[in-house]
């Protein structure tokens, strides 16, 4: 029975709209409307907690204030550094693990399942239990480090030098399996005849990796990094539970700062401007990245 017969009297276009209508409405209500509203608010001095005070139009004042605030640039640097190191480590370790698991050996499936476990946990829960792992007195992490190299008592979360690494380590532990899975999918899509042809041509294992494996898996890896990049740009829960953005502001990512400005200080106009700037930044980077990724795919 064709769709046309089932919905008698309705054109195909109308039936199409009937199906996507609810989704479009939902999208408009929970994504587009808040976005437009936030853009509107970003040009006002609105404070959501100051009941009865009408928002006044302030032009670009909030944007200028955000862009000129030294503290904001510090948070952006913290975010950029967090993203750089997590993406780099997740790319290298994820690809390495995928190469390992792409080989056939006993216990392969069990090992894959075990490696994937961390990404199934809630980020908030991960944040909480890593605070215990990092505890200088009873933490397993410190014990393991001291087992291999005696550093004495050190506080991963309380030190401004170590805390940024503490969040990088946890994010890498949690999300490398994701990169690994995507790379593994890429590796399994490489046809065997390419390697057979390379063997015939006496290509070394290294040459096979450089000229066959890497180009084949690269679009997959880049896609995984795009997802992780977007996620880490808005990283919030795990870091809040782990360090609360501290010590001081050493791990206060842009998203944590935005939440504090918007929902603790209630500077709605100012934080809307900050949110719009973050949105434009990630949107811009995302677009450039996708274009680069498509070019790599086309090669």
């Amino acid at each position, binding site marked *: 029975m064709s769709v046309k017969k089932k919905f008698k009297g309705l054109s195909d276009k109308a039936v199409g709209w009937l199906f996507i209508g609810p989704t479009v409405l939902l999208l408009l209500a929970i994504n587009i409307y808040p976005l437009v509203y936030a853009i509107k608010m970003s040009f006002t001095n609105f404070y959501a907690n100051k009941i009865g005070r009408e928002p006044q139009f302030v032009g670009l004042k909030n944007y200028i204030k955000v862009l000129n605030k030294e503290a904001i640039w510090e948070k952006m640097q913290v975010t950029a550094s967090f993203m750089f190191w997590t993406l780099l480590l997740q790319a290298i370790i994820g690809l390495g693990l995928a190469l390992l698991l792409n080989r056939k050996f006993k216990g392969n499936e069990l090992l894959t399942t075990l490696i994937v476990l961390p990404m199934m946990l809630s980020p908030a829960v991960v944040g909480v239990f890593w605070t215990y792992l990092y505890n200088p007195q009873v933490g397993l992490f410190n014990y393991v480090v001291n087992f291999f190299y005696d550093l004495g008592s050190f506080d991963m979360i309380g030190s401004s030098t170590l805390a940024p690494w503490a969040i990088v380590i946890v994010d890498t532990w949690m999300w490398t399996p994701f990169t690994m899975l995507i790379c593994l999918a890429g590796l399994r899509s490489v046809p065997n005849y390419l390697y057979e042809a390379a063997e015939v041509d006496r290509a070394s294992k290294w040459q096979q990796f450089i000229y066959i494996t890497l180009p084949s898996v690269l679009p997959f890896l880049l896609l995984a990094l795009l997802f992780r990049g977007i996620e880490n740009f808005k990283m919030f829960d795990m870091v809040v539970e782990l360090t609360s*953005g*501290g010590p*001081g*502001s050493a791990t206060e990512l842009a998203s944590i700062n935005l939440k504090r400005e918007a*929902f603790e*200080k*209630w*500077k709605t106009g100012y934080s809307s401007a900050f949110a719009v700037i973050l949105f434009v930044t990630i949107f811009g980077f995302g677009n450039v990245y996708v274009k680069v990724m498509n070019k790599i795919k086309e090669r």
Partner: protein
Amino acid sequence: MILLFVSLFSFSVNSNAKSITLGWAAWDPANALQELTKEFTAETGIEVNFEFVPWPNFADRMLNELNNKGKTFDLLIGDSQWIGAGAVYGHYVKLNDFFDKEGISMSDFSPATVYAYSTWPKGSENYYALPAMGDALAWAYRKDWFDRPELKSEFKKKHGYDLGVPANWNQLYDMCTFFQGREIDGQKRYGAAINTERGSEGITMGVTAAMYAWGMEYENPNKPYDMEGYFNSPQAVEAVEFYRKLYEDCAPPGHSDAYMVANLDAYKSGQVAFQMNWYAFWPGVSKEDSDGRVSGFFANPKQNVAAATLGGQGISVVKYSDKQDLALEYIKWFARPDVQQKWWDLGGYSCHNDVLNSPSFPTSTVYAQGFLDSMGIVKDFWQEPTFVELMLPMQEAIHDYVVNGKGTAKEALDKIIEEWVEVFEADGKL
């Protein structure tokens, strides 16, 4: 059919039952209040439902509820700093007419608590809460260790005075460093568990205990909101430097984001000789002394002046409640002297003069005298409607200096003033 009838009937009974909801933080006194309230329900037939929110989320949860004009709570035991916002933004019901009608006199309550928990503008006769839970930041110490002859003599030999309740912050530091890293009964011990928490208000509440004792004022008493030279005075700078020294030399390892529960844990697990915490926890600490642990308690030590950080809360009726009459009935009951006495007996901290001035009060518990002493010297953080905006920069700057070791104490205080000026300007105060 019968089941359906019974369920419909029970639903109808429940929906008709008189009930109110009270919101507070999830901590020991909340359990005591729940116990006490059973008598209110027995007397009036009004059921009281409780929603207790863990401290780290307490302000967020409750203030969001108020800002959204939520009807979840009929009664709210809100932090002292919220009173300004509660009054100015119309979240709390003004209680003056009700107090007059019911003969509830604010002169029956400790003046410091009325000033701190009930009035806005401060010191005026506009009441938005009934003082519910008196509290201040204080100290507990391991009296059993302090009483050991070998430790006493070693300390006296080293410092020239007796190991005991510290008379000032310098002595507190001496004692903390004395215990830092010391092995007692085969375990390594540390000096003091102090507030260092970054996320909500922890480190601010801790560092102000030192700053008040050094004589810090937030503003020029003759020129409100003029903070330069007051909040960043040399004494205030010295106090903040001292607090960092205390953290660096006396805190147990990993105590870099600690507040109430973490301090309690460090103390109860036998890691530290001292803990800084609120009086609210002392009934629990005292009751749970075991395995030879004996706790002593004392008010915040003085340095240049005697002062302590104020805690505690008043109980307010939420303006958006549909059951204000029932909520007011609860307040009327709670204000009764006999109920206030039971409140203290159960582990709550009454602010009623009949309880506090009773001759038996100072000896009623080991921490009662300290509580009385503290409530006479308390000072509070800004109670402005914008207090959260004022709290956050202080949390960040102080944590950055004390825990992170970034910059100087003067720079941290200057930075805070800079942010506060911006907040007051946006609020039309400057």
